[in-house]
């Protein structure tokens, strides 16, 4: 599975924070990927079944904000994302050791 640099950044963000589900603006801020690329990437990953989205479970009145749409890696998406990212970095050179979440890849 060939991925782009922006996709790799997004997947790394997911892999680095396995317990935190991501949201659009957070991903944009963390990865530096612009909105015009991020949402098509997320849609593509959802199409592949690597990522799924769900609505945040909060009390909107208590939190005084609307529910966000959160994204997370699926069970099948996690190893596939690891492999895709490692393949991506293999093409560029050795896998950087400082990238967390890729040691096992």
């Amino acid at each position: 599975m060939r991925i782009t640099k922006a996709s790799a950044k997004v997947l790394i963000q997911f892999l680095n924070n396995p317990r935190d589900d991501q949201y659009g603006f957070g991903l944009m801020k963390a990865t530096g990927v612009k909105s015009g690329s991020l949402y098509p990437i997320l849609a593509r990953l959802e199409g592949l079944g690597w990522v799924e989205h769900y609505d945040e479970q909060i009390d909107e009145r208590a939190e005084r904000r609307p529910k966000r749409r959160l994204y997370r890696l699926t069970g099948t998406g996690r190893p596939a994302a690891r492999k895709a990212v490692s393949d991506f970095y293999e093409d560029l050179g050795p896998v950087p050791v400082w990238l967390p979440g890729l040691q096992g890849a």
Partner: protein
Amino acid sequence: MRARRFGSTAAPRAADENQLASYRWSQRFAQRIVRIAGWIYKAKRDEWWADLIFFQQKEDEAGLRLATSCLVSSPGLAWPHASMELAGWLLAAIVEVTSAVLRIGYLVVVRCVQWSPQALGVASCSLVGHWLPIGGISNPEIASLVILAPVGIYIGTTFPRAFLSLLGAAGGAAIGVGAGAEVGANMSLPLFAAAGILVGDGFGYWWAETVAAFRSDAVRSPHPGVNVIAMDRRPEPLRAALASGGRLLARMRIILENEARSAWARSVAITGLAAKGLGWNPLGRADAESSQPQRRVVVPPRTTLAAPTPIAILLPEVAVEVGLTTHGTATNIANEPRAKRRVLQSGKQSEMRRSKAAQRRPRDMSTRRSRPRAT
């Protein structure tokens, strides 16, 4: 999830009042930008809004850069949706234009056939005027045409069958004589003339029947205000011409209005089916899901439930003539469950009444029988 106004965001840590004011200003500006971006790309409107509010509350940032990014990218993200809509509009326009051209063409043909006896009457009277010009005046042919044209219209209107048969026979005889002259034999001339008369008379009779059929049809209008637009059976020339012109316009308007209502739904459905058939899904799965609530095409019952034949769609007037309707079947189907329910309910009620009466009757009889006679 609709974008709601969650106005009170967390207070910024900035102590300085100027900083606070500028922070609030940038917050509001970012919110405005996200609103505009969401207006452009409605599928992400709520998501962007919720993200921005969260971002401003928790991250303690205005999110101006991210909001601008959303605004810049929104046209590109919205393009697949817009292209589908554009394709739908184009298809609708093509369907509309084709349908209008067909209808107008059909109406023109109908009118030409309906008024052909009058036109032929005028033409034949002008021939009479050509052969027998009125003497003593300038332009005798035009004068005789002006004088004889009403006579031709009257004859064509009042005696269309006899006139057209006669005209057909005369034309047939002329053609037969011409053909006989071409053949050259003297004996063949009456033979050809007789054959021409027979064929011409038959053609004239058939034409008169067609005119009568076109004149006497009644087109049931699907417009609720207008039930029947009856064609004139025996039109008086001037009044009929005026009334007919008005009816023609009314009829065209009704047809075009009705078609315009359903054309959009039809074209959207056709586009969707075509896109599905070609495997074209430019929105992607997630975007397609998220974009579902943003636009709902309300398909009228007659377009969803009816199974109209192509002729019924394209030429409702022909369909009416041959016994098809574009809307009647659908309306019946749409009303069927309720009607059935009513029938069933009424049937059940009457059955219950009958059974109650049947239950009551033997008891009454038994009570009567068992009741001792008063002595």
